[in-house]
């Protein structure tokens, strides 16, 4: 994922659902690199917001036993895309929690590639999306377990909530495994808000918009659980929700 010279096309798998017109306005995109030394720990929070397109590309290398916690709120008013490639050495841990909120005609997307290059590394990805109007939310996530990377533990949990029948979610969790004795799990679900829950909240006096916001905030906050700035992220997600509700 180094800087590409030419604008991608939809034929490239990672750009299949991208908003190429918006991408052109910010192209080319420089790759930000981050390397954690063996045993090093780091956390990072990225908030993609604003009125115009934001596209960011990260390349992360985790040394043996390093731990990296990355949280993302992708909730701007235009095209928002984060791609991240993480390579894990022996026993490294990568924790990824991302929430995307979009409405109108917007496209938001997260593309991840997590490479378990050596044994016993752990990666955990949680992605939650709330999509209204005619918005499109994408998650393309690939977990690659290389030859000899035994004892790998990789998980992906992707869920999207559609506020309107006209919104679209694309979720593609993908596993590529070349080692034995690994534990990889992925799941994705696309749904609508639980009507029974909404009625329960309404029966206690919450107006419909407040009931929805409360349930959606809870849904999104699953991506922020345990983050150092969990409260700030959850509050920012709620503010973004109010714009799409």
């Amino acid at each position, binding site marked *: 994922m180094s800087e590409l010279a030419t604008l991608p096309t939809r034929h490239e798998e990672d750009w299949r659902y991208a908003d190429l017109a918006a991408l052109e306005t910010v192209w080319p995109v420089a790759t930000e690199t981050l390397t954690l030394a063996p045993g090093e720990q780091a956390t990072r929070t990225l908030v993609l917001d604003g009125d115009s397109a934001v596209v960011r590309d990260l390349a992360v290398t985790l040394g043996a036993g390093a731990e990296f916690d990355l949280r993302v709120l992708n909730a701007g008013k235009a095209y928002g895309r984060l791609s991240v490639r993480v390579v894990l050495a022996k026993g490294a841990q990568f924790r990824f929690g991302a929430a995307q909120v979009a409405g109108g005609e917007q496209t938001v997307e997260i593309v991840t590639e997590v490479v378990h290059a050596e044994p016993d590394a752990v990666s955990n990805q949680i992605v939650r999306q709330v999509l209204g109007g005619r918005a499109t939310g994408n998650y393309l996530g690939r977990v690659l377990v290389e030859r000899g990377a035994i004892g790998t533990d990789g998980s992906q949990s992707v869920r999207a909530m559609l506020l309107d029948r006209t919104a679209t979610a694309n979720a593609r969790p993908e596993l590529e495994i070349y080692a034995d004795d690994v534990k990889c799990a992925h799941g994705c679900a696309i749904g609508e808000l639980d009507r029974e829950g909404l009625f329960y909240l309404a029966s206690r006096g919450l107006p419909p918009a407040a009931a929805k916001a409360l349930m959606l*905030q809870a849904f999104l906050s699953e991506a922020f659980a345990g983050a150092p700035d969990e409260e700030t992220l959850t509050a920012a997600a709620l503010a973004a929700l109010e714009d799409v509700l």
Partner: protein
Amino acid sequence: MSLLSITDLANEVAGKPILKGLSLSIGAGEIHAIMGPNGAGKSTLAYTLGGRPGYEVTGGSVTFAGEDLLAMEPHERAAAGLFLGFQYPVEIPGVSTVQFLREALNAQRKTRGEEPLSGGAFLKLAREKAALLKLDPEMLKRPVNVGFSGGEKKRAEMVQMGVLDPKFAILDETDSGLDIDALRIVGEGINAIMRKPDKAVLLITHYQRLLDYVKPDFVHVLAAGRIVRSGGPELALELEEQGYEAVVA
């Protein structure tokens, strides 16, 4: 004047008629119990009064505190003073009871033109009601009903009722899933919160045992979508002894 007046109420759920001309009048200060066989329409009555989507009223009227209840949205009914105790309280992952209950209470207060309750005042109130129901107040910080036992869910419902302080409560099988001690605690809680001259309760139950604690002024038998018999507390005992079939026939 009655607090709640139901006249010839008829409805459909998924196209199927359930309530077929139900009439009932409940005055302030009164506790009414509705008993009846499975499938009679007891829970449907509760949901219909609460305004649950999918419970379509096809006839009749309901007046609550002088207003047309059926014209109100569910949250407006709550703000008007109606409380619905669920037979199966809904679990809402990620939303803590204190957060949702405070928002709900303040939404009600706003609708009524009252000032919102501060965080501190709210917590004091919630702790007080939790103590009344002997529920660990720490549980209120957990997501709504998630991981609660059957009995804890019902006690949490009553804590919510205590905090929201409604004029009228419909309690749908609040006694189901309770052991003997919990039944007494919940019964005493209902009395403490709702046994007041300006409030009223409609208890939906299968058994006499809750009525040992919350003594009803009136007992009604609901069968096939209508009230088929009404009487005093002795009717519940008669039902307990003889069963619905003998009494309804």
